[in-house]
């Protein structure tokens, strides 16, 4: 696997505090949740706030918290610092796999932005599970707001820029019957 040493170092930070029943990885506290929870949070927030506002809320908080957690883990990391921006993003995508966000590939990459695709984006996978199990319907708009935030954060970290330096839009989503989810990231 590419970026083995970074991934292994990240996995080495995974710790379970049995006294508190709390988990941490990369120096930040984390928790497991299932697709049922996260898709219902998504659905309920969109239902109450509306698609645009609900999506923005989830995207922005995913970007902020992912940026903070990646910055913390990679602070002072000479191996990461030695990589070119594309290599840094590729390494981060391997960490996203560890976190079970789904596999994401780079379709194009440049200083001004990138295009990513995923046949396994986590929230899309969860939505489609609900479609199969509970009769949920295909969506009218993309679902992977959190992945947009994660990818915008990855780009900012890769280029050493602050939160908000990139904007992310999901242009195609499996929850809308597309073959894969596609994310376009541009410099803000």
């Amino acid at each position, binding site marked *: *696997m590419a970026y083995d040493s970074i991934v292994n170092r990240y*996995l080495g930070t995974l710790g*379970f505090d*049995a*006294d*508190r*029943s*709390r*988990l941490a*990885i990369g120096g*930040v*506290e*984390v*928790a*497991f*949740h*299932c*697709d*049922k*929870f*996260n898709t*219902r*949070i998504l*659905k*309920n*927030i969109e*239902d*109450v*706030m509306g698609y645009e*506002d*609900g999506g923005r*809320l*989830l995207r922005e*908080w*995913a970007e*902020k*918290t*992912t940026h*903070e*957690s990646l910055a913390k883990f990679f602070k002072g990391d000479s191996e990461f610092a030695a990589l070119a921006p594309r290599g840094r993003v590729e390494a981060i995508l391997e960490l*996203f*796999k*560890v*976190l*079970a*966000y*789904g*596999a*994401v590939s780079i379709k194009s990459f440049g200083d001004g932005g990138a295009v990513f695709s995923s046949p*396994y984006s*986590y929230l899309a*996978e*969860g939505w489609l*599970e609900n479609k199969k*199990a*509970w009769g949920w319907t295909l969506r009218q708009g993309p679902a992977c707001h*959190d992945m947009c935030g994660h990818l915008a954060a990855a780009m900012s970290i890769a280029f050493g820029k602050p939160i908000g330096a990139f904007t992310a839009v999901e242009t195609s989503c499996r929850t809308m019957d597309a073959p894969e989810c596609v994310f376009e990231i541009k410099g803000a």
Partner: protein
Amino acid sequence: MAVNAEVIRDGVLGMGLRGNPETGLLRGFGVILAINTVDYLIEREIAFLKAFPTAEPMAEKALVDAAQWCANATFGGMMKSAEWAGLIAPMVKTKVDSLEALHAVQNVLGWGKIVGYEIDEAAKTYTLRVKHSYYSKNYIDNHGISTKPRCYMWQGVAAGNMDLVFGSKVNDFEAVETQCEAKGDDICEFRVRQKRALFDLL
């Protein structure tokens, strides 16, 4: 055999809970899991509530409802999974055993620690006590001491546990959080009862 929480904890953690190196998905216990930062999990909920200051009870209900459905679908799915059959089912003989097995699994997910419970099987009432709920310190650090309980996920899960073990459908039970560390209490406490049918109110 009584439910051995340590065996369940070690068994679940020993499964190597991380995304598949190829797909990046984590399928286990009949569900798809992901690992999110606690900051993300909490702050998206608080931002959602702040967007609706005049309709906060409705927004809070939407958060609790998501967790109650999660409990039913996730832990209901887990209880039918091969992993449950192999690791946990041999320990479970009674409904109370089922509840304790659910507690043991819930105690390895990073949500905080279930430290006690009471169940009245005849009255179908249940009290769940949690320390170090993932909401508490995060909420206080970022927003100060709360004026009201904040553990929406736990509230839904507490009711969902009873839906699963003593109920017949999702939302058979309802929970209230009566104490919360986020508002300065020593513990988070959730009291659960069966929802009253309409004729009970007449």
